[in-house]
């Protein structure tokens, strides 16, 4: 659970700093007024840490997919920010890539759990809650991330609604994350 705990802590810090910047934007120096880089960083950390966690599960440790998907994603991040996008702007391409990578990993985990012959009851495993939460969050937000700017330009009202959908899905993901940490701690105490 270490990657999940690191993600929760770093995610909380990044979100708090981003919110504080948006509140006190005017009283901050110019170079500190942009919080988009924090959202981009949060997205990259989410993929790396939660991808690391899913890969570390016994279920898909040896799979070919887990070996190359994260390096390919990191390569994409580097190429994207060097050649195509500025990290100071919210990168919808990056968020969409995040959705694809994490969705593939989560779906791969869920399908592997169905094929698993061991005695593990994956429904009661903390990873199940994390993957379901992540799957739900990424599935809901993939199209929102993909068409974020065109949506705001064409239909502002719907664009604002999608932001509410994004927030609700993130809250659900966080609740499931908290439940999985609680379950993991309970399992550890029982052992």
């Amino acid at each position, binding site marked *: 659970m270490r990657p999940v705990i690191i993600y929760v802590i770093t995610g909380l810090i990044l979100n708090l700093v981003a919110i504080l910047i948006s509140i006190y934007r005017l009283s901050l120096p110019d170079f500190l007024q942009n919080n988009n880089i924090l959202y981009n960083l949060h997205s990259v950390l989410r993929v790396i840490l939660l991808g690391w966690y899913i890969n570390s599960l016994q279920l898909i440790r040896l799979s070919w997919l887990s070996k190359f998907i994260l390096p390919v994603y990191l390569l994409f991040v580097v190429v994207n920010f060097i050649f195509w996008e500025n990290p100071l702007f919210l990168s919808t391409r990056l968020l969409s890539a995040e959705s694809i990578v994490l969705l593939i990993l989560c*779906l791969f985990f869920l399908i592997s759990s169905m094929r698993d012959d061991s005695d593990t*009851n994956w429904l009661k495993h903390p990873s199940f809650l994390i993957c379901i939460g992540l*799957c739900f969050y990424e599935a*809901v937000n*993939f*199209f*929102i991330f993909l068409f974020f700017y065109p*949506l705001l330009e*064409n*239909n502002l009202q719907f664009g604002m609604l999608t932001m509410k959908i994004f927030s609700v899905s993130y809250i659900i993901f966080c609740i499931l994350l908290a439940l999985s940490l609680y379950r993991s701690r309970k399992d550890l105490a029982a052992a």
Partner: protein
Amino acid sequence: MNDITYLVSVGIGVMLLMVVSILLAVIYNQKKKTQHRIAMDKLREQQQNQLIEAAVRSEEIERHRIAETLHDEVGAILSSAKLHLLGIKEDSLDEKDKKLYEKGRELLNDVIQKVRGISHNLHSNILKEFGLNEAIRHFVRKVTQGTIMNATTALDDNYKTENPDDDISIYRMVQELVNNILKYANASEFMISSVLDGKELNLVIFHNGDGLTQEQFEELRYQKEGLGLKNIQNRVILLKGTIHFVKGGEGYRVNIHVPVKTNQPENE
């Protein structure tokens, strides 16, 4: 609604549908696997019980066969030998031969008694004819005869079983436990009591010596020298009962709970 709004709405809907479908498939699959696992565990337990039952039954058959051989063949030969020995006229013997004759007769009587004892121990006719309580009382009297051990029994006479095989198993457990007390506990007194509680027979063996706790029993029954304890555990499994070793203030207690079929009305 313009194209992008439509595309995003449909996209979110499709993705959600996909996630929900996979989630339901995982839950269904896991439930099916759990059911299969439970069924397999049950089957494994059933097979294990059948093996234990076969082992216990074959042990009983073998005991019966040995008891019969000892009683009918060895016992008969010894009795015949005694008759032949008694046929010797003592008057015709000198002092030295008389002493040898007396010693031989004494030893022969001892052997006959011992063979009879072993035979009865291996296969108790009392158990068959008078039931579990009488067999336990007789066994306790026999093992404590000529010792300073103070043994008491307080057995519930309402107990009457319909399955004699269960009685044999309960009797064997009591035999093994009492023998262990006599061998290892250094006790000066022990008590065997039973209470018939509805469809359950609660048997308690108490002694004031050095006994076993539940942890020690769990540990010892897997050891080679703990064969008696393993047999006790096998019989408990066979009877679908439970056994608990408890250390009390004044001694040690073995509580055995066995579900039984009785003719006793339940409201009594």
